[in-house]
């Protein structure tokens, strides 16, 4: 149940439960977390909880469950997708009962080729029938294999199989034993074989490595808070926040001392000192960092660096050590826009269906400042960025909110 974006209205006490819940989760709390998967064994029509002996103990917030006999050994294996990492897990079936299995791949002729909707009934001697149906999409956001799997107890002898092709006559198949089969509508089963295929299946020659920085698709003006140091002249500048007792920070500083990064002006800030001398500024840095993401971190990771362009707009956020080449590359690309910027703003390559080009909305940033009670910085920001803010249709509302908060402050 995705409570978070449910649009739930206010509670009796005027609170906003959905928003509260979002805030809890964004700050790292758990909600029905660390739950193991549950399995109920069907014992001839009645169910028993057997979770403790299934080995499905991963607690990474499972979502979709897909079944397939991945290794074609006659039992169903499981792929589960997860919210936490690893985002997919594979569980191989140990075939605990030692029974047989039969896999059927159907191919329609006068119905749809995938035979979606086909119902197969398998009758074993002296047993009630088993039924499987070809489905595309079931459970939660999942598609299992279209191969139909029937488990068969060791003593089971198959008498016949009926295939009810969608919108067509049923087909009866006798003389079939456990195994893997392909059945074309109207034809006898043939043994299902895997083939080698022609695609060069080698590891991707250009493995993408993930660099821990976000090259922002939105350019947020920050003149109000980060004045351009005269030494930076017309170069981008990089603000790096460090702390003591931090190996990465020390190594980074040493590296820059020996070989200063080209094309960028460096500005080092000691976070612990800033916390004492200008805690409000530190809070603004934290807010700036959180502004772009849907989850907040209680403590900014250090070292953390902000790349600011010639127009005093924030362009990139780096976590941890900065690769010199990457920084240089980012400085070169600092003025790209449109789809080029969009591609660069995500960690891996790929294509988009939508053509939507994103732009920053400084108004939302001012809202963040107001939410945090930073009224003076918000007013300051509004003054500095009046021209772009004025274009936002919600600007009059923002001003009203600021005035209201200010008068609240005067009359406690």
């Amino acid at each position, binding site marked *: 149940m995705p409570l978070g974006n449910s649009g739930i209205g206010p509670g009796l006490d005027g609170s906003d439960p959905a928003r509260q819940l979002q805030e809890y989760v964004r700050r790292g709390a758990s909600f029905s977390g660390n739950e193991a998967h*549950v399995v109920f064994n069907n014992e001839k029509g009645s169910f028993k909880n057997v979770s403790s*002996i299934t080995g499905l103990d991963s607690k990474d917030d499972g979502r979709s469950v897909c079944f397939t006999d991945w290794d074609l050994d006659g039992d169903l294996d499981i792929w589960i*997708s997860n919210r936490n990492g690893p985002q997919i897990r594979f569980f191989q079936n140990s075939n605990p009962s030692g029974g047989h299995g039969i896999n059927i791949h159907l191919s329609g002729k006068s119905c749809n080729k995938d035979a979606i*909707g086909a119902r197969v009934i398998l009758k074993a001697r002296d047993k009630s029938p088993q039924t499987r149906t070809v489905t595309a999409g079931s459970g939660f956001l999942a598609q299992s294999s279209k191969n139909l799997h029937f488990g068969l107890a060791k003593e089971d002898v198959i008498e016949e199989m009926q295939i009810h092709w969608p919108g067509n006559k049923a087909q009866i198949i006798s003389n079939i034993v456990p195994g893997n089969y392909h059945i074309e509508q109207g034809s006898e089963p043939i043994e299902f074989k895997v083939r080698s295929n022609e695609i060069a*299946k080698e590891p*991707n020659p250009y493995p993408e490595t993930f660099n821990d920085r976000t090259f922002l698709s939105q350019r947020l003006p920050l003149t109000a808070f980060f004045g351009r140091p005269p030494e930076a002249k017309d170069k981008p500048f990089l603000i790096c926040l460090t702390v003591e007792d931090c190996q990465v920070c020390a190594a980074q500083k040493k590296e820059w001392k020996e070989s200063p990064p080209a094309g960028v002006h460096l500005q080092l800030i000691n976070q612990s000192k800033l916390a004492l001398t200008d805690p409000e500024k530190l809070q603004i840095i934290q807010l700036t960092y959180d502004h772009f993401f849907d989850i907040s971190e209680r403590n900014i990771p250090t070292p953390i660096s902000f790349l600011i362009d010639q127009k005093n707009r924030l362009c990139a956020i780096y976590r941890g050590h900065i690769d010199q080449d990457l920084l240089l590359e980012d400085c070169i690309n600092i003025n790209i826009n449109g789809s080029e910027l969009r591609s660069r*703003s995500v960690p891996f390559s790929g294509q988009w269906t939508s053509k939507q080009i994103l732009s920053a909305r400084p108004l939302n940033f001012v809202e963040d400042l107001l939410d945090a009670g930073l009224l003076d910085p918000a007013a300051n920001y509004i003054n500095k960025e009046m021209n772009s803010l004025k274009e936002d249709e919600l600007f009059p509302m923002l001003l009203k909110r600021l005035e209201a908060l200010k008068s609240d402050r005067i009359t406690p």
Partner: protein
Amino acid sequence: MCLQLPVLLLAALLLFSSCNKKEGTDFDGPKTKVRAVQSEKPTIKESEQLAAQIESELILFTQRIVSGNLPDSFSDNENWSQLSNRFLNSSEQSRNVKVSVFEIRHERSTIQTVARMEMKARLNNQNYFGLITQFESTWSKNEDGQLKVLKIGDPEQTVLNESPVLWFRDETDRLTAKEPTFAEHLSRGLDFWLKRIESIHGIDAFINNGMALGDFDGDGRDDIYVCQPGGLPNRLFLHQADNTILEAPKKTGANYLDHTSAALFIDIDNDGDQDLTLATPSGIVLLENDKHQSFIRRGILQTDEVDCHSLSATDFDLDGNLDLLITFALGSRSLDNNSSFRFDDARDGGSNQLFRGHGKWSFSEVTALSGLSEGNDRHSLAASWHDYDLDGDPDLYIANDYGQNQLYRNDVRDGSRLFSEIANEIGIEDRGAGMSVSWADYNRDGLPDLYVGNMYSNAGKRITGLSGFMPKNKEELTKHYRRFAKGNTLFKQEKNGAFIDSGPATTMGRWAWSSVFADLNNDGWEDLIVANGYISGPRPDDL
């Protein structure tokens, strides 16, 4: 508008972080009556605090059971001794316990609870052993706020399992080891990416992304397509001869960066290979399989809403061309001024859309034409097609969050196909927080049965079970709210076409996302698996 369950769950969440765990209860102590403090009926918050305290006491008790260190007062109790003895021959490190209080009642001077106890261990003979039981306990609170146990009832409804092998082995590492993008990308969970990808790309803390299996490259082996939130590429992994996976080359054209909630491998053009469809906020993306080598984009079926969830394919009109259904949770419509969101009956969801296939990549939107607009305003998280009445055409079941579910029966009327919504008529409306649909003939009587995934919540059960949870005149609503914490429902189809709720044996699936049938142990009977965990954050406080 009445109190809402989420508010209550939230109250419970708040206090789990604030309540301080007390010293362990003296289970060995003489059972002298403590002078109980007579107090007003506790608030929900106080009640939840007590439940948390009692739960931590019961964990200590459970640990003593599995370690064979039974409290003196229980040494004569055959039931508990027998249970404890089951763990005698097990290794200490392998023992694992979990306790959940799911019912709490406040009497004049005592507190009664019902708790579930789950224990497992590896026995010395190498067998895996698990035990689930539930029991009542009675407590009192003295003037210092100290809880005293007055009575622990006998274990009831005990379930034992023992097996020389675990049913499944986690082989993820072996299968993914050769593929470097796995370590770079999918080995990291959503929380990692949320801090690194701007939310504007379509990634948020509550997002869900699915997965599909199908044979893309025509080698007879299922490949796997993993959907991702906006800003991360979906990944197509090809199934290798040694059963490991490698990502398809970039030129395949499967790495979409839009938020993709679900995907399906289907042969849309009936040419014998597996095409791919994606549910995205831009619509349903149609990708044609080109000679088992790559995908050609054949268009996007525009949708009216953006909060897409499930995608399913069927041939509802039996014309040989596949049709597509996409469901939506949140809707863009705003409620009338007079009505507000109802947790138990939300009608502000996005309208689901049905696209009829005409072949040659042509589709038309037939939602209204086919009669699916009836009640099409709920938060639909899952849908599944199945010919439940065995009349030869597929019917549609939709699981809705915050309200009742729907069964659309596929009927031929005046020569055309029309759906009729009859969930209430046949007893499968299952009003709750529906998240998953699975059909199977689990009892092998020839009639399709249904398993619906709904959340199960101990906190929800405790709170909605309190007397005075709601005013006396709101009995009907109280019932609905209790239902919302109950969990999954297994519906058995009767010969007359009606369905009956087959009871509590399969309800406790926990949060329960995919809740699905499959014969996991090759005995011919379809079992149930429930994938779990809502959000496991870095902080341990939880409901």
